[in-house]
């Protein structure tokens, strides 16, 4: 080969140089301009998004006493990729976990993500966290995240307050606000007012180096947002009354619910057996939840809202009002106590509506209901049970029965008031008064929940209207409280006020007059108007009582329902209701012996309540 042709080989070599240069520039263009996944990956490397959890709103009672507050706990977060432990044993002993636990937790975190943080150990209390905090910088790949948990200073009103728990996958899909590990209200006020209580999460972006050490805030905090605290709830619950009611119900099964008639505000709300809400907080939550849900006495079941009881004789007050208003009876209508129609206890025949209520005469209300149902249909001019029943159904619904009371708690049921369509379906061969007469005395197909009973007591106390019972009066903070409009609206039953006076008089007699069924509820200086009920069912009768007091400008309306009490409304529910009335109206209970009796008594049979031991404080 000649020297000249060899010299031209320089172009081959220069060509190689240029080719490599061009390939590299193209590659750089691809990496740096076209493909932008790397930008994101670099951010993921170096930026740590720390969620700033807002503190949840507090819940107060009607006098400003705390029902729920927050306490700081710490979640220990882990980023598996960055974990470098010098001494795993030391780390384990600091966290008080075993080596196996450590491996299990690590595997779980890795399974979730190698790069993204997940919770390694959750809800470490402030006390336990102090020694960890001192050393956490040594453990690469771990950092702490502050959270708040709910605590209940008195451990009462579990069924009102509800509880919070980690948000479910389903909820995360439905609402993108929630992220894995967030807390959400699962029941009670916590669930109903979730949007108000939760506040708004913030986020802070910090720079971290390869060893997971924080290197200051990203872009001087330009992209950081502060958490906005949740708003407080100012409830209508009277803490003292609530505690008192729970004390009475500690060894019973049933409910007590009290309402301030003029406002619809719920004063106390007990569904027994209940539980200490502190049990469903923190790390013991899942264990305790399992225990409570397996308890055959169903402490998690909210009887006030969800139970559907036969109302029993308390329904006679409603029957009287409906019949009077329909004009099928007058105040002085009398019916003989004919035990051939329906069973009754021994008492003189009632000669007026007040007496019938006072003595709770079953045959009397059999006749009353008969007159209600067997009315002449003005269209056909014939006696038509369907016509009568449909009038009755709508009148009962106007009293809050058979409709969902729009209380600010989740899960409320509507109860049941049968209508013609129901019986048409139930009795395809036809029906008439004689097939449905049990409803006359609050048995049969009528189903009522205790909230509706208390609401009915408030309705009578107000002589014709009620405001939907509610737990929360206002929300916001101490300087700016806002109200809910729907809890100021009066719902009328459209029954003339004269008739209410008759009912009130009868209820007063029930407690205060000779022959009344609730004489045990009598307090000399407080005029209580009440009505007993003894609801028949499988097993022993339920003992029922509704009342309000005082008779003039009532302050409280109460419903007490004691399950399987082996006795009528007069023997258990009425005296218990009178204790609630006295406690609230007088502020203290003077009848100490009487009080002791009814607190200690265990009327319910086979009461399988496991008493829960408080775990906190």
């Amino acid at each position, binding site marked *: 080969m000649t020297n000249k042709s060899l010299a031209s080989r320089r172009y*081959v*070599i220069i060509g190689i*140089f240029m080719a490599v240069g061009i390939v590299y*520039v193209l590659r750089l263009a691809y990496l740096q*301009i076209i493909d932008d996944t*790397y930008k994101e990956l670099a*951010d993921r*490397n170096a930026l740590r998004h720390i969620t700033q959890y807002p503190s949840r709103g507090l819940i107060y009672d009607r006098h400003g006493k705390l029902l729920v507050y927050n306490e700081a706990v710490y979640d220990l977060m882990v980023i598996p990729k960055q974990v470098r432990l010098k001494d795993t044993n030391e780390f384990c002993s600091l966290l008080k976990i075993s080596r196996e636990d450590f491996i299990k937790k690590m595997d779980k975190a890795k399974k979730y993500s190698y790069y993204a943080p997940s919770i390694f150990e959750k809800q470490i209390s402030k006390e336990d966290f102090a020694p960890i905090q001192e050393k956490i910088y040594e453990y690469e790949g771990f950092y702490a995240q502050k959270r708040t948990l709910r605590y209940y200073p008195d451990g009462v009103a579990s069924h009102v307050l509800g509880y919070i728990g980690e948000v479910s996958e389903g909820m995360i899909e439905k609402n993108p606000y929630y992220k894995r590990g967030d807390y959400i209200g699962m029941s009670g006020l916590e669930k109903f007012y979730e949007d108000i209580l939760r506040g708004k999460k913030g986020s802070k972006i910090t*720079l971290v180096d*390869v060893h997971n050490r924080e290197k200051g805030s990203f872009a001087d905090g330009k992209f950081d947002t502060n958490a906005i605290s949740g708003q407080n709830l100012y409830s209508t619950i009277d803490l003292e009354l609530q505690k008192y009611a729970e004390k009475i119900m500690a060894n019973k099964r049933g409910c007590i619910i009290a309402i301030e008639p003029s406002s619809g505000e719920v004063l106390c709300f007990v569904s027994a057996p209940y539980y200490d809400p502190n049990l469903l907080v923190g790390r013991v939550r899942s264990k305790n939840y399992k225990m409570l849900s397996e308890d055959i006495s169903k402490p998690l079941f909210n009887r006030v809202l969800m139970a559907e009881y036969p109302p029993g004789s308390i329904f006679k007050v409603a029957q009287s009002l409906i019949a009077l208003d329909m004009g099928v009876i007058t105040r002085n209508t009398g019916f003989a106590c004919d035990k051939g129609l329906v069973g009754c206890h021994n008492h003189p025949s009632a000669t007026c509506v007040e007496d019938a209520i006072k003595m709770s005469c079953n045959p009397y209300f059999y006749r009353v209901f008969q007159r209600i149902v067997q009315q002449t249909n003005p269209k056909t001019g014939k006696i038509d049970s369907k016509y009568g029943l449909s009038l009755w159904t709508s009148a009962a619904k106007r009293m809050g029965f058979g409709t969902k009371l729009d209380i600010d708690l989740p899960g409320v049921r509507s109860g049941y008031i049968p209508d013609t369509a129901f019986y048409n379906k139930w009795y395809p061969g036809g029906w008439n008064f004689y097939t449905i007469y049990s409803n006359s005395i609050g048995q049969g197909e009528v189903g009522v929940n205790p909230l509706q009973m208390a609401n009915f007591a408030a309705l009578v106390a107000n002589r014709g209207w009620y405001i939907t019972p509610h737990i929360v009066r206002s929300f916001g903070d101490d300087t700016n409280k806002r109200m809910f409009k729907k809890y100021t609206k009066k719902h009328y039953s459209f029954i003339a006020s004269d008739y209410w006076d008759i009912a009130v008089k009868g209820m007063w007699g029930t407690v205060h007059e000779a022959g009344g069924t609730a004489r045990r509820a009598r307090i000399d200086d407080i005029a209580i108007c009440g009505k007993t009920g003894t609801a028949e069912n499988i097993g022993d009768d339920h003992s029922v009582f509704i009342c309000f007091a005082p008779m003039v400008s009532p302050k409280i309306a109460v419903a007490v329902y004691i399950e399987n009490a082996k006795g009528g409304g007069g023997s258990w529910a009425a005296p218990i209701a009178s204790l609630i009335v006295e406690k609230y109206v007088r502020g203290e209970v003077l009848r100490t012996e009487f009080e002791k009796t009814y607190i200690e008594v265990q009327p319910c049979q086979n009461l399988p309540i496991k008493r829960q031991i408080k775990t906190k404080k």
Partner: protein
Amino acid sequence: MYRGGRNILGKLDWGIILMYLFLVFFGWMNIYAAVYNGEGSIFDFSSRYGKQLVWIGAALLMALFVIILDPKFFSQTSNVIYAFFILLLIAVLFMGSETKGAKSWFGVGDFGIQPSEFAKVATALALAKALSGIGVDFNDWKTKLTAIMLVTIPMLLVFLQNDTGSALVFGAFVLVLFREGLSSYVLIFGLVCVVLFLLALLLNQYLLIAIFFLLFLLSWLFFHFRYKKISIWLFIGMFAFCSLFVLGVDFLFENALGQHQKDRIEVLIGKKQDFQGVGYNVNQSKIAIGSGGFIGKGFLNGTQTKFNFVPEQDTDFIFCTIGEEWGFIGSTIVVVVYVLLCIRLVKMAERQRSKFSRIYGYGVASIIFFHFFVNIGMTIGLLPVIGIPLPFVSYGGSSLWAFTLLLFIFVREDASRLELV
């Protein structure tokens, strides 16, 4: 003979020197950025950037020294220099200190010297000397053998130090030999081997052999009917070679390479994805460069760099810092400067009147190019991880000094090219 230094500065090729200075100081800025932690002065000599400043100062002094030296000094003493460094390479095997698995350092306290870096200069000189003698004909097999010996001896010694990357650098001299008359087939053969190697790793070997069979059969048929006089044995031979090569690759890959080398190759060709283990460096390096975007994050603002996500980011992976903080613009400028530098070196070599200078010039261009090619190729994920520094830019005294000497000896030769030999 060189007489006086009054006009030597005017004869220097300032284009090359400016590119050199640009790379050295831009390199230093990026070392500063890679090490920077928000405190300390730039003259903190306990820090890496402070030390590099000292190395740079010393390198400039060396450059100056080389320039005032008689240019004949290097051509006359090249064999002595070569012998001296070969001895050093042998000595380091016994007396050297070990860093990261490679026994390639002479350590004196905090200070270390890596003879393999200087051995490249010595080899370039010795090769130039051997091929430039009067009456030496490259086509003579003795010349070829001498040339190959001169390159392979230091290559093997460096390989024995367990510094595979630096050993491979000696392969760059193929370009010099090519210029001096090595058959083009050697380059083509080398390229074919690389392609076959990759194919053998990526595809099933038997499938490949079947493809080869079809390919060679079809081309033989084509040639046979078109030109008639073609020997079937040529095609059989090629087919046999390719098939054996493919089978051999598998064997070699499994038996001759170390696990970390196998991993690096498998990660590169995408057979293995392990961002936590062997793929970590390259992945983080690509993240750093890719996140720089078009204009970069700005000096000292690289998060990948500042927070040490990329290992070796002031030495072998210094290009990440450039890519992250200076973006596409900055990294392209660096690539372009390297390519221009190498092309300029080739052009300068071609204008030499002395054969020694020309061959040496090609040696300089080949070594710098090879380092640039492998180092940047590795950081942008086009080549496997081979730990060799980026010339003039990476942190390290030995590397900077060796490259400075390498370059300035040639600059000196070039400056005196018009003088009488």
